[in-house]
């Protein structure tokens, strides 16, 4: 297997603008025509899944053109996906997008028959797999598919190494060889040294990478990735996206990638499939989707995502350079606030985790009373968000808040702060502005954690 520095930091992870997404960044898009001539790696033909038994009435209504809601009301059956057709070329990354519940997970599970399709065909390398016997199906899954799950689905009773080697173990590979290959896969995702740990000892992002390593270890032709990066923090997420692109340039997997995130779809996708209520609304290159959205739905999707969805708390937060320590005295705290003309100040422990905040008024009173410590005056009713929280949530949070919202990481460390004007500025500004702000914030966040430690 090709080994590379999976987690090497790209030089400026945030200096990413829409213009760059629109320009072909990879050789693949230039090769469109040659690829189109080859046999598709995956061909999906009129694929339909009806949840519930018997499915026939739902199929009939579907053919008559009724939508999912109507079918649900009339028959009680759920239309998971309806009449979906598309091809995926060898070496292509196909991104499937759509709102929650539109059938993305159902679709990707039909591709390796984790969910049995009700009607239609799935052709892998020209072979229809919908009719395969159980034995052939197992062989096909072992030989051709690797899968990464939204919820990681790591085995809690196995070490990281054993988890990663699972697919190879299923294929009957000997212990030494499979563990060696699993170790390589772990290296590929930047997790060397964690082989003997158990999943519960790893952060969400690391678990997600183990999931990826487990899929890569079997060296599959096809990678099915169901919101594979959604648990990662924005920095690592961008690195992973970049490395997936790099990896793709070397090993040419065929990837079906599900995401909610337009930004991610634009970065990764050679083509994007947009779904709604189980049906495909549009298939096209990112450029096509952005420049000529096929329907109001797509348009709205693109629009919404542009503003409040694509902007995240981590992207617009400001440096929290001026902070108090719990051991500070009220005079120190007040002095810091006066210098910045703040009414309140966040209090951060030595390890960078957020303790609470203090009011300037309280500090004045504390000094009068002769208090030595700010401890008793620390308030704790502040609001916190994760860096990947979309701005839409922030707007509601900030509406009636007198103090800034704190952006904290998984460990509770303060990364930055957000006030109303940050959000307004970010929404008013264009995409490129955001990139700059975000880059600022990123360096600032680094500084903050240095300053706090």
């Amino acid at each position, binding site marked *: 297997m090709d080994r590379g520095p999976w987690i090497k930091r790209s030089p400026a992870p945030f200096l990413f603008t829409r213009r760059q997404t629109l320009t072909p960044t990879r050789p693949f898009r230039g090769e469109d025509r040659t690829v189109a001539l080859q046999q598709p790696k995956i061909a999906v033909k009129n694929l339909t899944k009806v949840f519930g038994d018997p499915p026939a009435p739902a199929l009939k209504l579907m053919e008559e053109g009724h939508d999912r809601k109507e079918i649900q009301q009339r028959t009680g059956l759920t239309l998971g996906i309806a009449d979906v057709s598309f091809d995926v070329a060898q070496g292509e990354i196909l991104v499937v997008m759509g709102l929650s519940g539109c059938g993305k997970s159902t679709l990707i599970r039909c591709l*390796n028959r*984790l969910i049995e399709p009700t009607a239609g065909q799935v052709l892998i390398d020209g072979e229809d797999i919908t009719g395969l016997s159980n034995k052939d*199906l*197992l*062989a*096909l*899954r*072992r*030989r051709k*598919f*690797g*899968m990464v*799950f939204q*919820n990681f*689905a*790591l*085995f*809690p*009773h196995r070490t990281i190494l054993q988890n990663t080697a*699972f*697919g190879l*173990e*299923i*294929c009957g590979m000997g212990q030494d060889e499979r563990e060696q290959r699993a170790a390589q896969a772990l290296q590929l995702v930047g997790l060397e040294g964690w082989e003997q740990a158990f999943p519960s000892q790893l952060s969400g992002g690391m678990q997600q990478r183990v999931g990826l390593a487990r899929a890569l270890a*079997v060296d599959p032709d096809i990678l*099915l990735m169901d919101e594979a990066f959604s648990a990662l923090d924005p920095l690592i997420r961008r690195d992973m996206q970049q490395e997936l692109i790099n990896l793709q340039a070397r090993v040419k997997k065929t990837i079906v990638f599900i995401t909610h995130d337009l930004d991610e779809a634009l970065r990764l996708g050679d083509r994007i499939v947009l779904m709604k209520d189980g049906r495909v609304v549009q298939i096209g290159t990112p450029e096509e989707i952005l420049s000529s959205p096929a329907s109001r739905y797509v348009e709205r999707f693109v629009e919404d995502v542009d503003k409040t969805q694509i902007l995240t708390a981590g992207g617009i937060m400001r440096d929290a350079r001026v902070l108090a320590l719990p051991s500070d005295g009220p005079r120190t705290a007040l002095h810091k606030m006066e210098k910045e003309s703040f009414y309140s100040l966040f209090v951060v422990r030595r390890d960078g985790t957020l303790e609470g905040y203090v009011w300037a008024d309280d500090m004045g009173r504390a000094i009068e009373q002769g208090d030595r410590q700010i401890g008793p005056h620390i308030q704790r009713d502040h609001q916190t968000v994760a860096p990947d929280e979309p701005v839409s949530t922030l707007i509601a949070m900030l509406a009636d808040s007198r103090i800034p919202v704190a952006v904290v990481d998984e460990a509770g460390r303060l990364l930055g702060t957000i006030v109303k004007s940050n959000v307004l500025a970010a929404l008013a500004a264009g995409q490129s502005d955001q990139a700059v702000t975000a880059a600022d914030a990123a360096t600032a966040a680094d500084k903050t954690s240095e300053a706090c430690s």
Partner: protein
Amino acid sequence: MNHDFPFFGKFPLSDYIDDGLDWLTDTFSGLTRAISNVLGDGVDGVVMLLSFPPPWLVILVFAGIAWLAAGRRVAIGTAAGLLFLWNLQLWQATIETLTLVLFATAVAVAIALPIGILGGLSERFHRATMPVLDFMQTMPAFVYLIPAIPFFGLGQVSAMFATVIFSMPPAIRLTILGIRQVPRELVEAADAFGASRRQKLFKVQLPLAVPTIMAGINQTIMLALSMVVIAAMIGAGGLGGEVWRAIQRLQPGNGFEAGIAIVILAMILDRVTQRIGRKRGS
């Protein structure tokens, strides 16, 4: 007052059951007697094996096993408890009871595991077993002794039979639960990598169910131990026999001694098996 049902005579349920049991004993008595002999010999053999060496040596071995399975504290507790039983002159009875309980548990688990696995994997089988389990558990344990005697004769094997039936349900229930509790997405992940049913069972479902299954086995052991006094009524001997004799002779002191011995044995078995479950679970 006459409480007879006014419309028609008594439904002869007891006659039917008697006839059925008679038929079963007649038909299978050869087989059941053979089983009885084999198991009886096995139990006797183990009892002899444990009675032969000096008690301190056996205590040392048990403490060692407890140490390996559950750590130092449990090992010390085991040694102290067994020494106390030895001192109470209940050593022989303890060995008999322990052997009977462990044999009964082994048989119960050997039957319960496959049934539990089937029930965990198949919803239909699960639904079919549930009423049977309810029946087995709620039927007063004494009742099992009655048919056991014609099948297996008086003594240990009949006691074991009743004990097995009475103590098996939790092992089955918790095996079913343990397997059904395995998160769906983990089974799906195994499927996605092409695992066969057997690979799924042995590499994912069973290992993840171990803590729950061990909890079931623990309960089975406790129930088996709770049967020893009842089993003594048909001549199973052991600590239950001591209690039974004390009851008949109105010797409260002796009765309590044997009762406390049962409690000590229960605590030892409980702590050791509980730790095994937890250690594997983490």
